[in-house]
Structures are given as C-alpha cells and as structure tokens.
C-alpha cells in the first residue's frame, strides 16, 4: 500500500513552471529517495506536498486528498517535514523547539526515542538553538519531526553542509528511524541513499525521469548520466 500518492503535480512560481506533471508514489514503511541535479524541483516537490507552494494536481495521504488544504492541516494529517535549511527557531531553546512541535505531550515513547537518537540534545535542552553547531541544529530539525507519530517524513538534504563526522551521525540516526518510518528523502549524498533507500525517483527539469530500485546507483555510468555526479565518489 502507498502512503503518499502524487499525481500530475504542477507548480508555477512567478511565471516559471517549476513542476510539470510530477507523478510518483511512496510505499508505506519504506524510504524513497528523490534524486536529481540542483534546481530540478526536488525541494519544491516537498514544499508543494506540504502546501507551502500553491500547486495543481492530486496529492493523497493514505487515500485522503490533501489538495487545497492549509499547511497546518496537512501537517496534522501526519506529514512531518525537515527543511533543507533546517529552519529551527534560533531564539528558542532546544527544549522549546521540541515542545513547540509536540502535538501530544503524553506520547512519552516518541520523546524517549528522540532522546535516545540524539542524547546530545538532552544535555543542551536549555541552550538557544541558534547557538548550536550546524550538525546539532540538524539534529534539532530531525528530532522536531520525530516527536510526533506521523504517517510520513519529508526530509530535504539532511546532510547538506555537514562535516563528515556529523554526516555519519545524522546518517546513523536516519538509518535507525528508517525501519519504522515512511520517508521521502531528498539527498545528494548517494552512500546514504544506498544505505537506507528502497526506492529511488530521479527528477529532471520539473519531471520524473526515472523510478526504480537503488541498485542503479551502483552503476557509475548511469549515475553520471542521470545525476551528473560521479557514482564512485558520492
């Protein structure tokens, strides 16, 4: 069964036709990676799903239409989002960031899971999030998306701009979450995609140009053709 179903999604921003009929599905309890060169519309797709950009087409979560709904209603329906630039609330403490995101404070199991995933955040709970390092801020952004039981996690380039050691930490955390959460992951880090994704979707110029198994990522020529990067290095 598919958790998320996107059909013929179009997004126009300032006369630019960014998404041109994007159609794909995200199966439940799996990680689907959305790949492609910079500027092909991956982040826009996530934002359109969340209602942050006006769009045309059909978006369904577990068979329920999300089209035309306000962003907060879409999030309440069970979509968590980790944006590309983290967008944590810098003036709030770590605890306040997590508290703000928590829809059900009695869900101690989720809070415990987050604490176990990111023990560093527990010790920094009173620290202003804006004073954290980039890696710690990313942990807050991911933790914020995990404190509620959601149907799907949309996560946009979680390892972007992080030092290699932190990339490993974030990748480990996502690897642990991947087993129990449906995830739509936008990521340029192919080793991470190979490690946790069961499906890949490749976009180019606002369209889906490939959907299939991550096995293709082991083919260096295919990777170079489709993604414009060297498969061996990424």
């Amino acid at each position, binding site marked *: 069964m598919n958790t998320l179903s996107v059909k013929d999604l179009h997004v126009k921003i300032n006369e630019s036709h960014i998404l041109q009929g994007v159609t794909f599905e995200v199966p439940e309890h799996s990680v689907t990676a959305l790949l492609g060169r910079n500027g092909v519309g991956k982040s826009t797709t996530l934002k359109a799903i*969340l209602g*942050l950009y006006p769009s045309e087409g059909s978006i369904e979560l577990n068979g329920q239409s999300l089209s035309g709904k*306000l*962003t*907060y209603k879409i*999030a*309440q329906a069970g979509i968590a*989002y980790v*944006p590309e630039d983290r*967008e944590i*609330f*810098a*003036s*709030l403490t770590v605890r*306040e960031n997590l*508290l*703000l*995101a928590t*829809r059900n404070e009695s869900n101690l199991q989720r809070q415990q899971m987050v604490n176990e995933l990111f023990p560093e955040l527990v010790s920094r709970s009173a620290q202003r999030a804006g004073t954290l390092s980039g890696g710690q801020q990313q942990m807050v952004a991911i933790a*914020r998306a995990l404190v*509620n039981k959601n149907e799907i996690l949309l996560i946009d380039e979680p390892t972007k701009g992080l030092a290699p050691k932190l990339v490993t930490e974030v990748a480990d955390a996502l690897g642990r979450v991947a087993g129990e959460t449906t995830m739509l992951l936008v990521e340029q880090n192919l080793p991470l995609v190979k490690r946790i994704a069961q499906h890949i979707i490749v976009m180019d110029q606002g369209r889906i140009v490939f959907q299939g198994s991550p096995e293709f990522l082991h083919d260096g020529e295919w990777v170079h053709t489709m993604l414009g990067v060297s498969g061996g290095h990424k």
Partner: protein
Amino acid sequence: MDTFMLIGITGIGLGALYFLVASGLSLIYGLMGVLNFAHGSFLTVGAFVGLWFSTQVVHVSNTWTFIAAMIVGGLASGLFALIVERVVITRLYERHIDQALVTVGISLVVGAVLAGWFGNDLRLLPTPPWFINTVSIGSAHIPVDRFLYIAVALILLIANTALLRYSRIGLVIRAGVENRQMVAALGINVRLAFSAVFFLGGFAAGIGGVLVSAYSNGVSPLIAGTYLIYGFIVVVIGGMGSVPGSFLAAMVIGVIKQYANYYSPGLGDFVVVFLLAGVLLLRPQGLLGKVKP
C-alpha cells in the same frame, strides 16, 4: 530639583501611555508584518466604550468603576481588533500596501462614524475623586494619576512577558515571529496566534484609550492621532516585535519629550524625531530588536 522630578515622573507616565499603544503595534508588526494604521481606532473605540460604561451603565465615579471601564474598554477594543483581523487583515497578509490603505481607511471610517455620532468635542470621562490628588516626593507634588499609568503599563509588560515566555500561545507567537511557514509546517494553526495577538493588541490599546482619555480630560474621536504616531515611533525605536524594547523606548521618549518641552516649549516632538532618525541610522533593528537574517 522638584521640577526636575515632576517632569521626569510625568514623562514616565506619558511613556506608559505610549507603551499601551505601542505594545500591540509591536506584536502585530513583529509577528505578522502587518502595518496596522487602524490601531488608533482600537484606542478610540476603547475610550468611547469606557466612556459609555462609566456614564450610561454605571453612574458612580469611583475606583472600581474606572477599573471596570478600563477592562470593558479593553475587551471591546480587543473584540473590534479581532473582527478587523478576521474580516479584513486575514485576506491581506503579505500585501503591505493594501494593508496600509485598508487600515488607514478603517481608521478614517471609525473616526468619521464617531465624529458623526458624538461630535468632535471632548466628553468628560468620569474618574475617581483621588485622580486630582498629588503625592509629595521631597518637595515635589506629583499628580497621583501618573502612578496609575505607570502601574498599568508595568502590569501589561509583565503579563505580556509572562504570556510570551511561559504559555503555549506565547511559544507559538515567538516562533511565528521567526518563521511563520515553519510553524504551520509543524501542524500549528499560526493564524489563531495572529488573531490572539490582534485581540491582545486591541485590548492593550483599549485600556490605553481609557487612560489617555483620563490624562487628556476627555474622550473625542481625534484622541488617538498623536498617540498612534508616537506608538509607531516607539515600536521602531524599541525594535519590531520586542515588547520590552517598546517599554524601554516609550519611557525614554516620554521623559525626553517632557524635558525638552519644559526647557523649550515645542521642542519635544523635534527631539523625538531626531532620536528616531539616530536610531534608524545607527541601530536600524531598534534598541532591543533582533537583526533578521
């Protein structure tokens, strides 16, 4: 020295009135980016409802009547602000020019309706008998009402700060000031927080309207004009969205204006505008405002 103290405390009292107008403006602009020129009409509505309550509902001039008039005026103003936000502003988010035009229009309409109904003459707002008393500090005799304005402003500052710091709605508001879209992406109806801010801003302005009327010895549809302009100046100097910043700026402006006017009548407004220009040039984010990334 007595005169120095008298002017200083009167200036703080005046600053307290500016703060009552500015606190709502600051939150409304800081959270929603709404340039609300109708804020003065919130103050006027509060003043007239307070007058109606004091003269038509209760016919006794005492402390409790005055406090009740402040609360009723504040609630009426808050409700009016909520209606303005729900009916008009909610359709104009991100459309700043339209916001300015529409809120100026609301302000003009409210002023015209009240002027047509009541006329532009000052109508006396009943105040408690002790309002005319003075308190001796050293050999200075300070009008006692100044302390009431200061006390109400302090209560509002503390209540605002506590609400923002310790309540769920305060958390949403603080987060919303930083990033509205992300708050919505967390499943939070940030528009409800917007409405709450409008209500709170209107409530403070309504209380301010009753106190400004007491300070000005009466209520009139024109009462808000100067206070709204000073409210905006306070918000800019204090820092958009910073309630403590507004409080500090209001006090500084009130005191400087009073001293300037004492030593050179009419100089007060010039000094305040000069101060505004200085802050905009040297610290554009205001005294306690944060630089937006």
